């Protein structure tokens, strides 16, 4: 969620149970401003918190010109001193999926040892910092959400905030296909001509949530006396997206233990 709206939007996602205490919020307000200046970000977001066994990681994300591709992630233990995470590459993702198991310990230099399942079966060692980078990247890729119309793509391909987004209406916010994944779509389903009534190439360049498999991996509810539309992911438990209808306020936050819910097909 945007750093500027942190102080009121934390209340809107608090329905999931976890939140930040006052001290952490105050520290974030100071440190995120400093971070924006130092790293020259366009916008700074507080991405969330990953709970480890001994320590918790606070994650922040800085966005550049292109909101979709220009992202940098940083982590901290006390919301004050931030360290840059390396960008996640394919090889890093393979290593982490082979070696890292269980919960995050809270020590970024802790080394996970595993063995490759294919090929020569050689040993792989991965440290927790890389696992953190890969986890944040995966969560962003799989479950980051925006309401339809809040980001637009200009003719050069840059994805930017839509300044004239006035929010989804109450009835629109109850339908899951008005929410889109905020990632570079791999297979964008081409809609048949019946469904293309309101299709707009400026807004509809992302995949809607209804294309997710298994169906039902999102929980859409209205919380806070029916005023805020809250989407919770059942695949990565802990990701909460909020949107106040008829206003441009929206954002998502992840507070959880950083593990994918592989039992989802059993649990639905």
């Amino acid at each position, binding site marked *: 969620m945007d750093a500027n709206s942190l102080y009121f939007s934390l*209340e*809107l996602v*608090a*329905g*999931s*149970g*976890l*939140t*930040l*205490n*006052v*001290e952490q919020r105050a520290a974030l307000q100071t440190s995120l401003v400093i971070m924006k200046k130092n790293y020259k970000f366009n916008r700074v977001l507080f991405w969330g918190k990953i*709970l480890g*066994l*001994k*320590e918790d990681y606070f994650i922040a994300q800085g966005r550049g010109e292109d909101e979709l591709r220009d992202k940098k992630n940083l982590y901290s233990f*006390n919301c004050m001193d931030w360290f840059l995470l390396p960008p996640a590459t394919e090889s890093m993702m393979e290593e982490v999926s082979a070696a890292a*198991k*269980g*919960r995050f310990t809270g020590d970024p230099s802790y080394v996970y040892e595993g063995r490759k399942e294919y090929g020569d079966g050689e040993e792989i060692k991965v440290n927790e910092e890389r696992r953190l980078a890969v986890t944040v990247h995966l969560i962003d890729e799989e479950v980051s959400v925006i309401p339809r119309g809040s980001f637009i793509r200009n003719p050069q391909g840059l994805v930017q905030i839509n300044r004239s987004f006035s929010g989804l209406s*109450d009835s629109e916010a109850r339908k899951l296909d008005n929410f889109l994944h905020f990632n570079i779509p791999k297979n964008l389903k081409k809609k048949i001509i019946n469904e293309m009534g309101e299709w707009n190439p400026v807004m509809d360049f992302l995949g809607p949530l209804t294309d997710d498999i298994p169906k*039902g991996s999102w*929980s859409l*509810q*209205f*919380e*806070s*006396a*029916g*005023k805020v539309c809250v989407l*919770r992911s*059942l695949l990565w*438990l802990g990701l909460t997206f909020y949107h106040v209808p008829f206003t441009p306020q929206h954002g998502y936050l992840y507070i*959880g*233990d950083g593990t994918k819910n*592989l*039992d989802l097909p*059993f*649990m*639905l």
Partner: protein
Amino acid sequence: MAWQLGLTSSLKSRTRYDHLTCLLTKVLDEQPHNAVDVLEDMSCDVKRALFKGGQSNLRDLPHTTAAELLAEQQRLLFARQEEATQEEELVESPLPNVSEVGFYLEQAGVSLGREELQRIFLALKQLVASHGLLHCRLWGKILGTESSYIVAEAEYREDEEEESTDEATEDEERGTQEEQGENETDPIPRSTYKAPPVVPKEAIGTGTNKFVYYVCKEPGLPWVKLPSVSPAQITAARQICKFFTGRLDNPIVSYPPFPGNEANYLRAQIARISAGTQVSPQGFYQAREEEGDEDEEAPQDSHEVNPDFEGIPASEMAESLNTWVHHVQHILQQGRCTWVNLTENPRDDSNEEAEADEREEEPDEPEPEVGPSLLTPVSQDIEMFNTPPWSCRLSSALTSQHAVAVLRSNLWPGACAYACGKKFENIYVGWGVKCTGEGHSLPLPLQPQKEYPSGPEITEALDPSLEEEQALQEALEEQQATQEETEESGEEEEDDD
């Protein structure tokens, strides 16, 4: 000329002639200084004045949105009660201090939203007033896919009666009907399957049924009481992993099949979570001392508040797990808190000798299951899936003298406890599922049952070869020959008589 002008405006309701008349009337009335300069503007003004506005005869129907309906119901929460009940409340309030608990929970990082928490506490107050409960406490919130449950824990009143389920009698009736049908025609082979004996439920007020739980979807909506839990439901709940939908009558489709619907599953999970994660600072509760305790081995199932508790400093509580103890009884493998021996026959009390003989003969006499006793420290919990079962820390590193010690469960993600001086509280906000480590795996299907007893008539055997058949035939002929001889000799003997 007017006629010519009139012809050219067929579609408009006014003609150019009419418009010019109005315009000239306006100029003559107002007499502006530069009439020629402002003539076009005045013409526009005249045209605009003709526009009657978008007042159509259709009006919007006011919709009542869901938010408005909810607001109406939640308005009742804020209604003040009558003066007469205020005296009772001053004596002992069954609810804990609202804002204090919310403040400490927020320090610990757990929150449901400040306004939401306030509404929940007002709803709890309404629950206590409407049902006349003695003690009530917010147990937590269980998230569901369509809507969530807010759970309140309360003690049973003394006059509560248990609703008896007539499942056992229904089965008996069905059995007798089947028997009557079968006696008329050839008897069908009866199944020799005997279901394993059903573990009896615990009485209300003890063990897993010590408290009664009420749930509601949103604060302000009516509270629904959950049924008491049975050991079969707990055992089944241990083997499945399901999300809650938010509808209490939703059937649970799972393998192994769960005996009940979502309300029962919810109650079973609440029981498991309470037993696993309700903790308190050591010394807050002490064991109840009863006079005339014959059975010292019987597990204690009750505790009382220790009046001499002085509080442990938060830094100590955050460092060692020895300072936290469980204050809810552990649920045994059987599904109950106190063990019950199922192989005993309570009817044969007269034949004590026979019973003693039977017990000696049975090699697999079940050993009583024993769980950790009440008030054992949390540090003795077993580690599962290579993760320690609890994580504890201080809520703030900068102002540690006023910080709160926070204990979070890793087995039940979402269970949290805080302690600060003499005050502590437990809460659960989560999806109601246990951490499954590597992943949930279904139990394998059972061995197929033997359908019929195998005997010589139906066991397969090789058909005899030609030589064997001939040998058999010769043997039979010999036998027949000897039989005839003995018969003849028998007849001769009879003839002699």
